[in-house]
């Protein structure tokens, strides 16, 4: 029996071993719908985006910021008021 330090995360249990069989085709199709891949505690999807920074046009790749804290902010549009 292994000792575990108590952290903030609630310990969970579940099936152990190989996942059962292949997914039926009908299920695969419904999963195809585009959905957000964002979950806290999981990797942020990498991307490349053109941009403007201090008088220059730049290309920014999220994974270039590994090793640093990143705040990624979206907003509705330039010249919107808030």
């Amino acid at each position, binding site marked *: 029996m292994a000792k575990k330090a108590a952290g903030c995360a609630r310990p969970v249990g579940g099936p152990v071993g190989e996942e059962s069989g292949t997914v039926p085709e009908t299920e695969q199709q419904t999963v195809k719908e585009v959905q957000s891949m964002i979950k806290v505690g*999981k990797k942020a999807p990498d991307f490349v*985006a053109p941009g403007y920074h201090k008088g220059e046009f730049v290309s920014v790749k999220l994974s270039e910021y590994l090793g640093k804290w990143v705040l990624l902010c979206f*907003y*509705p549009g330039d010249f919107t008021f808030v």
Partner: protein
Amino acid sequence: MSIDSQFTHKMWNDHELSRMVDGGVPFPMLSDAGGKVGTVYGVYDEEAGVEARGRFIIDPDGVVQGYEVLTPPVGRNVNETMRQVQAFQLVRATGGAEAAPSGWRPGKQTLKPGIDLVGNVWKEWKTEQAFD
């Protein structure tokens, strides 16, 4: 990041934002034509063709630690964002030995999760500490 082009970003920075912030916007203003990145991050509104006010905190390992998404008419609270970053930095610096309870900000008491704290938070931490 927004659906605007880098050219529009330049105009907005040069003509308006640089009059509000000395030296202009200090970080890259990114362009997401068609909302492709926004779709993956779950903030792109296809009907309106724009992105919501999504804010993601990503740690040095590239892991999303937190996010907040607002509809367009309400602005963010920058202080709250900074507080969350500072809290996640503290947790990371202590390797998870310390946790930031509700209302924590730098200088306030942290909690040290462990077997002795189970059922004893009420002795260590008071509800008033959740408020400023």
